[in-house]
């Protein structure tokens, strides 16, 4: 197992190096720089700023310096926010995205699993079609449609919740539903599918024959095996939900990492974009590795194969 984990961690290095290199040079190709603004800075001011941030040096030297600093864990200063470093910005925005993502995942799991199980118990009846119909709608409806509809109903119409922001506990409700619902829908379909495969199996019949309660049969025996496809979906989904939440962060004006990423790209904040790419890459690889390990624990067959 340790060998397996080490192998996954070593794989990180080429992935990170390639992403940094591609992004480092690509972002420089984009027209405009960090210091072009509506009212032009004087040539002298731009020269001073370039000098301060080392942008006056040859690009390969800048690349080398960046990699050197990265090894020390220093992602550099933000060009757009001079009094903040990229490390500070990530430290401030990641917990927000993490909270949003974790809550949305939790919501997706609870709703998705429940709906999937309920649907699988009586296939092709109303009890199946209703949750699966809603799930299909959930998959099809993009968050930029669902979010404003929820705001319209609960924020503006009923006046129960704020229309934007991330201040109070109740501010979490609408963004979490908006972000989580597509994942909930997907999980419910996965759960239903695998439950339908598992339920007719012999060992389930045996369990019933032993006189176990229906709840024990479903949650203890059937669900454990039916969960495997859901778990393998969870790795990329969790990374995606945390890093890809910028649409929801924008709709609800949430100060998370996704919005920072988009703003960084618009502002040509080179170091911020690079820092976030490094961080995102790290997250995706780690989550995938984590799920591989988890799958190994759940399924002894996989463990033995590896």
């Amino acid at each position, binding site marked *: 197992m340790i060998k397996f984990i080490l192998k996954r961690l070593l794989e990180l290095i080429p992935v990170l190096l390639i992403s940094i290199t591609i992004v480092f040079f690509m972002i420089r190709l984009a027209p*405009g720089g960090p210091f072009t603004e509506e009212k*032009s800075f004087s040539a002298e001011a731009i020269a001073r700023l370039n000098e301060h941030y080392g942008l006056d040096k040859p690009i390969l030297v800048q690349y080398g310096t960046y990699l050197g600093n990265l090894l020390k864990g220093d992602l550099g200063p933000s060009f757009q926010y001079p009094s903040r470093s990229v490390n500070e910005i990530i430290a401030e*925005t990641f917990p927000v995205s993490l909270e949003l993502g974790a809550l949305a995942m939790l919501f997706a799991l609870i709703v998705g699993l429940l709906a999937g199980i309920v649907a699988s118990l009586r296939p092709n009846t109303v009890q199946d079609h209703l949750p699966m119909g809603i799930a299909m709608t959930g998959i099809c409806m993009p968050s930029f449609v669902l979010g404003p509809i929820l*705001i319209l109903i609960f924020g503006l119409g009923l006046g129960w919740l704020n229309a*934007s922001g991330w201040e109070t506990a109740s501010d979490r409700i609408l963004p979490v539903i908006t972000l989580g619902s597509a994942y909930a829908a997907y999980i419910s379909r996965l759960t239903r599918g695998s439950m339908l495969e598992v339920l007719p199996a012999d060992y389930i019949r045996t369990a019933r024959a032993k006189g176990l309660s229906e709840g024990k049969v479903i949650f203890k025996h059937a669900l454990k095996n039916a969960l495997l496809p859901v778990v393998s979906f969870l790795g990329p989904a969790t990374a995606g939900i945390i890093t890809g939440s910028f649409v929801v962060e*924008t709709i609800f004006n949430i100060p998370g990492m996704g919005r920072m990423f988009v703003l960084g790209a618009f502002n040509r904040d080179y170091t911020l974009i690079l820092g976030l790419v490094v961080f995102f890459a790290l997250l995706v690889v780690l989550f995938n590795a984590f799920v591989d390990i988890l799958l190994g624990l759940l399924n002894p067959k996989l463990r033995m194969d590896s």
Partner: protein
Amino acid sequence: MNKHTLFPILLLLLLVTGCTRRETLVGIGNREQILHLGNLSEPKDLDPHIVTSVSAYNVISALLEGLVAEEADQSGVAERWDISADLRVYTFHLRPEAKWSNGDPVTADDFIFSYRRILSPALGSPYAYMLHLLKNGKAYNLGTLDDFDQVGAKALDDHTLELTLETPTPSFLSQLNHWSWFPVHPPTILKYGAIDEIGTQWTQPGNFVGNGAFTLKSWRQNRSIVVEKNPLYWDAKTVRLNEIHFYPIGDHTIEERSFRAGQLHVTGTIPLQRIQYYKEKHPELLRLDPYLRSYYYLLNVNKPPLDDVRVRKALAMAIDREQIAKFVTRSGEQPAYTFTPPHIGSYEPPVRFTKNVEAARQLLSEAGFPNGENFPELTLLFHTSDLHTRIAEVIQQMWKEALGIHIELENVEWKVYQSRRKNRQYDIARAEWVADYVDPSSFLDVWLSGGGNNHAGWSSVEYDALLQKAAQTTDPLQRLDYFQRAETILMDELPIIPLLFLPSKSLIQPSVKGWNPSILDHHPYKTIYLEEQ
């Protein structure tokens, strides 16, 4: 229905019945004198010598105070001042009771330190040029003069500050209200770095020491900036607000929704598509005030056929600005036939052309393009925005109908637009200019030869000379005359096509009192208060 389907439904019911219409932030704010403001974008910093954006100014003007107050005749840190007969030496008498938020007195030396800081070449301050007005200020800023003692700023004693200018500048008091002239607290700056060091920690909450009506309480990036009443402010008894919360909501639609949900007292702007709704249904919430903001098209005068003034004039004359204001933008925009807007003192900008389709056709024909025949395909460059797109589409149509020419529209991202405009990679480009202070020079100086914002590539020796003369004269009427003559040249040559004067637009709750119209869109917080309806 079994227990599995019942559970989620029960959960939902519990959630729904647990909620009631809550008291809004605006409601609580009204009671506790806490103002919630939409502030468009996250300020890059709160250092007055570094920032360039309006959203940063909105916060900084709560934290720092300049020599004079918003209305140039009212006092700020200076309680009175003397002006020499040649309008070049200004002596300010600072009020002894003015204090920094840590209790230190505000002294003339603090201002000298601040001016030295913003003019330091190594700081690379984008607005340092505002202080080129000071004698030798430019030389020091460009690094050709090392001795700051030769710059026209002297502390005669702790509370007397003497500023000597390069040229007589009647608008100087108005310019002093620009944030680049605001003082910073020297010991705080030096505690966190050198005088000319970029990006130190002095602007963070807990570190920031200011002399304004409010102090910095918290700054959570991309979330909110909170300032609270400064008990040590010299005029604290006038201040009625306890706190101001600034929210960086870049998306206008989201900002408007937050306003409707009772989260904001005042918005930074209004989405174009909502203006008609507020005009008809809630005019009491809508604020459209005159603003010194000119919206125009830049013409690349070095590129044929735009190098021919007849073509430029034809394009300018074929546009029906009244129609655009009435049916497209619909927010009280004024048609613009000059670059400088009205409302700048007694300056009357000279009108040199009007809408005249017949004359426009004639001019185009004289330039060799009768009925638009053989007119090369030009591109109109603008950046992604509802307003720019709609205006561009209408003008494209107007030029087609009036002149028979086809203009391609090119919508690009903000930084791409800026870079192409700066490098003059365009035929026609949308642009706008907002005044930094109330004076025609804040507009006309843009078109000086080689000016950093003169993106049209146009230059006129005569124009430069007239503005130079305006800067030298002490006679106010003569000065306005020079400005008029300069603008006449600009409007005869038309390197730009003036289109509209845009108002400042916001939504405002009726409980906000003292939010007065201001042509610079500045709203001094010390006189603003909230009153429950």
